[in-house]
């Protein structure tokens, strides 16, 4: 038991790295995903195709590869090449990757809104931008909460991939201690940490769903 207590400090430090990556990724990829979704449904064929290709590439290859690429290979790419430190490289890879997933969720949400809503807004004189902002997107939020909740919980666990850049997130710290002390207890404690994080997220999303349940479609 004392041993478990002694683990809490280092594991908590790992958790802060995990949480930092989690929150920054979320803050970047949600708006980026929304922009991508709007471009994706744009009538300009070329833009829509380009965004589609981007989403396909990001969802078709492992995030770990994307991270390794941005960290190690990107500096040698001409023009856009830039040498990023480890944590920023991880953040960029995570944000670009999750933006692609969120974009698909947003797109499906926007397209699930009945044509009648656009027509109802149109005959009242609202412009396309006003219709999106005031009528469509507020309704989209309610509908995308379940897939967003799934994706966000996946993100918590995906953060552990940053071990490839030797960043000490929760899981890597746990593995480090396992190697130092030669016991698997830290894994069990780490699992509990993850469960707590996902529980909190689940709870937050449930509250949001409840809030939006005040109206039905």
């Amino acid at each position, binding site marked *: 038991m004392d041993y478990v207590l002694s683990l809490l*400090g*280092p594991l908590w*430090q790992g958790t802060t790295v995990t949480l930092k990556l989690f929150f920054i990724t979320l803050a970047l990829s949600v708006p980026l995903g929304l922009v991508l979704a709007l471009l994706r449904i744009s009538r300009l064929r070329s833009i829509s195709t380009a965004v589609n290709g981007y989403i396909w590439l990001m969802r078709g290859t492992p995030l770990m590869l994307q991270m390794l690429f941005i960290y190690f290979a990107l500096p040698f790419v001409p023009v856009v090449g830039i040498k990023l*430190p*480890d*944590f920023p490289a991880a953040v960029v890879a995570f944000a670009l990757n999750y933006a692609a997933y969120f974009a698909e969720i947003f797109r499906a949400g926007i397209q699930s809104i009945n044509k009648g809503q656009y027509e109802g807004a149109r005959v009242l004189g609202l412009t396309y931008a006003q219709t999106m902002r005031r009528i469509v997107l507020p309704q989209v939020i309610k509908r995308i909460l379940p897939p967003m909740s799934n994706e966000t919980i996946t993100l918590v666990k995906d953060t552990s991939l940053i071990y490839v850049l*030797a960043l000490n997130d929760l899981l890597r710290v746990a593995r*480090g*201690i396992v190697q130092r002390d*030669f016991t698997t207890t830290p894994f069990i404690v780490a699992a509990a940490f993850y469960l707590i994080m996902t529980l909190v997220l689940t709870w937050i999303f449930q509250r949001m769903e409840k809030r939006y349940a005040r109206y039905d479609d």
Partner: protein
Amino acid sequence: GNNEQPATEAASQPAAARKVVVGLDDNFPPMGFRDEQNKLVGFDIDLAREAATRLGVDVEFRPIEWSAKEAELNSGRIDVLWNGLTITEERKQHIGFTSPYMENHQAIVVAANSPINTKADLAGKVVGVQEGSSAVQAVEKEAEITAALKELKKFGDNVTALMDLSAGRLDAVVLDEVVGRYYIAKRADEYRVLEDHFGAEEYGVGTAKENTELLAKLEEALNAMKQDGSAARISEQWFGKNIVK
């Protein structure tokens, strides 16, 4: 303290002459690892600190994924590899080495009650190593033995391999002797080290090949530390005897 913070800043600065960035695997006891307070400690850490003081530069320790060490060095994110880095011919092609500061064997660890006693007994057995470690090259160099093995399994780290040895799915693990002894000390009743080994080898400090200036300075500092006994003192702290050569 916490080494990630300054590390990220350092990488965005141009190679600062007043600071040396040391890349290491922070899960590599006893050479470099984290203590209960999550602080980086270890034999190589102390050695590098001492050398830095002598060179009059700040030292910064930067955990890297060990299997990506060449890429890290190559990309200039770190200046020095100092973490039980074995000098091998392959590595010499990409890495500039100081002269050796320590001798090491690629030790063979088996379960305490194992019938295996020599390298030859490994025929038909499953052997584990750490991916990207010099143990891989050491074992593969002895082609007949490698060919006779049932399987050579490459694990992400030594502990996974040792745990698999405990679980009985492996018959032996080959790893750096200094590291192996550290673990065996923790579970003396479970493992033993064979007399036989996969060759002696030497640890050196590595830099980028073109960074000859830093290499020369490190060489100088290391020699001075060996001569005035400070290296021996650090060794006694960690291993109970002087194994620096």
